[in-house]
């Protein structure tokens, strides 16, 4: 009995089953480094209140723009706040913003994609709408939305989510359209399943893997966009620590104290790069199986 149980558990068909993916990921050193880096950053961001040596909002004007030293490992910023602390809190905000946005974006995008694949009549209108949205650069679209919706975490998440949704809708529709061809969709219909049940239990379950992979790629984009909005002043308002706005604050003193902008920009760069590398690796891992 017990051997049977283990046989059952190891033979999961899931394309994104974790242990399996991790083992194959280990053969791609670049992706592994990216994964480790991201895990470290995420853990550090989550534990920022415990790890940070100073208060992120504690200004000290006599100590402003100090280069890295023993006391302040990464120096201080324009208000004399500890840069390491600011970066930890900034990463926390930016990552949370990016994650919330990608969740919103994938919900919207997946709904549009699945609906247009399932109801062929909706395909034309919905996909043309997506085409229109895609014709704007996402930064412009995000900017316009952020300006329209005003400042604040909620409106920022909606703006970022909406600008991430169109490409996700495309991917979801393409995947769902191929799943719709499968005979098991007919099989579900014959036994009398409702449209809702068919979409949830048959369509979504079989589309999930490519959509999740694509979202992991989009995550980096969204973070970049979030930082860009912060940099342009449309993000969260100071004194909130956010990587984009930290980079923007240091911009005026880039020659005097380059460490402020550089550190924030580098962190953004590293996070986005890691997301892209990891997303690429995920895609490569799942692709051959999807093509079958």
């Amino acid at each position, binding site marked *: 009995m017990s051997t*049977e149980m283990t046989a*059952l558990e190891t*033979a*999961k*068909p*899931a394309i994104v089953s974790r242990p399996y993916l991790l083992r194959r990921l280990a053969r791609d050193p670049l992706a592994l480094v990216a994964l480790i880096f991201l895990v470290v950053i995420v853990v550090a961001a989550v534990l920022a209140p415990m790890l940070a040596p100073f208060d992120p909002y504690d200004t000290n004007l006599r100590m402003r723009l100090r280069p890295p030293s023993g006391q302040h490992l990464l120096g201080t910023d324009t208000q004399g706040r500890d840069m390491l602390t600011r970066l930890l809190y900034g990463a926390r905000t930016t990552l949370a913003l990016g994650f919330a946005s990608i969740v919103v974006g994938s919900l919207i995008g997946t709904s549009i994609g699945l609906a247009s694949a399932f109801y062929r009549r909706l395909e034309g209108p919905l996909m043309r709408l997506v085409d229109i949205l895609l014709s704007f650069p996402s930064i412009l679209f995000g900017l316009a939305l952020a300006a329209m919706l005003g400042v604040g975490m909620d409106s920022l998440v909606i703006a970022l989510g909406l600008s991430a949704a169109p490409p996700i809708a495309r991917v979801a529709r393409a995947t769902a359209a191929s799943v719709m061809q*499968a*005979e*098991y969709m*007919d*099989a*579900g*219909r*014959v*036994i*009398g*399943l409702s449209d809702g*049940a068919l979409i949830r*239990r*048959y369509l979504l*379950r*079989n589309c999930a893997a490519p959509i999740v992979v694509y979202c992991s790629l989009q995550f980096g984009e969204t973070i970049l966009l979030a930082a860009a909005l912060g940099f342009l002043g449309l993000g969260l308002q100071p004194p909130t620590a956010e990587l984009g706005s930290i980079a923007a604050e240091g911009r005026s003193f880039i020659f005097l104290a380059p460490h402020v902008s550089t550190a924030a920009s580098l962190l953004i760069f590293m996070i986005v790069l890691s997301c892209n590398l990891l997303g690429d690796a995920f895609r490569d891992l799942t692709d051959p199986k999807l093509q079958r």
Partner: protein
Amino acid sequence: MTSLNSADAPLLQVEGLSKKFSVSGTWPWQKRTLSAVNDVSFSIDPGETLSLVGESGCGKSTAGRMLVGLTAPSSGRILFEGQDVSGQSASQQRAMRRRIQLIFQDPYGSLNPRMTVGELIAEPALLHGLADHRGANDRVAELLGLVGLAKRHAGRYPHEFSGGQRQRIGIARALAVEPRLIVCDEPVSALDVSVQAQIVNLLQGLQERLGLSYLFISHGLSVVRHISNRVAVMYLGNIVEIGPKAAIFERPSHPYTRALLAAAPVARPGARQAGITLSGDMPSPLDPPSGCRFHPRCPFAIERCRQEIPVLSPGGEGRLVACHRWQEISAFQTNTSGARHAPKTARLLALYRQAAAANSNLRMSST
């Protein structure tokens, strides 16, 4: 015998069923209609197996899909247990559709790969309230036993099974809603020959045990001969001949039926019937021929066939046949004695005999 059967009403009655697909040409305004199924009528009695045979593309699958509600008919009526399937409220229709289930051709594609076998089989029963969540496990075990699988298979995923086993799962899933009619859409043509026999025997056993009726869609004539009570032959969306199995197989009336039977391979060299061989392909259903749809390929076609569409009319032995000339043609003997091989086959056989002779010579000389 037919008069006896007509006493109790048929389980399923199909009247004038047609399906026309609208196909767009190069430009949106160049709409053309493809008539996949054309005015098809037949009935199935309780416990009976009706086979639907024909070339691929003749509309037999479309007919089956209309019965289970996957495709909406363009015109015609489907009466199940005397009631019109389409003229009902949604919930009534769903309850009625439950009694007609479908077994798919492709056992690899017809099971949701993300569900365990237990979930797959329990799903339809739970959906129609035939089992509650507590009773579902017992029901799954019972159904698995019915199709020759073990209870322990319930926790596995479809991809862990062979083609034949998957087809059994598909059958169990169809049985879960207690149907009376099962449309088998080429249920064995994707399987190994050795497994085909098992599945066909399983289907027959289930029929005896549960009193099921089958609409058996196939192009495998040997399987059809084995399983059916009656046979309907389709060509280009029309039924050209329908009747009891013996009548169709022993004394086919329609020239197309004859050609179809003559084309079936016989497992003995030299035993192949030198009957009608057809030339050319089936015409496109987008542009069907005038008159009898079979006339461009029919060796017996006359002017009348080009103009007048033949209707199904009684042709003896309880059959219906749609041909203007079937009475004249029946004089022709399909089974000409002393069958000849095709030239290519004859050459190959000669070569084979030569090689065999050389081989035995060699063996004799070596001993």
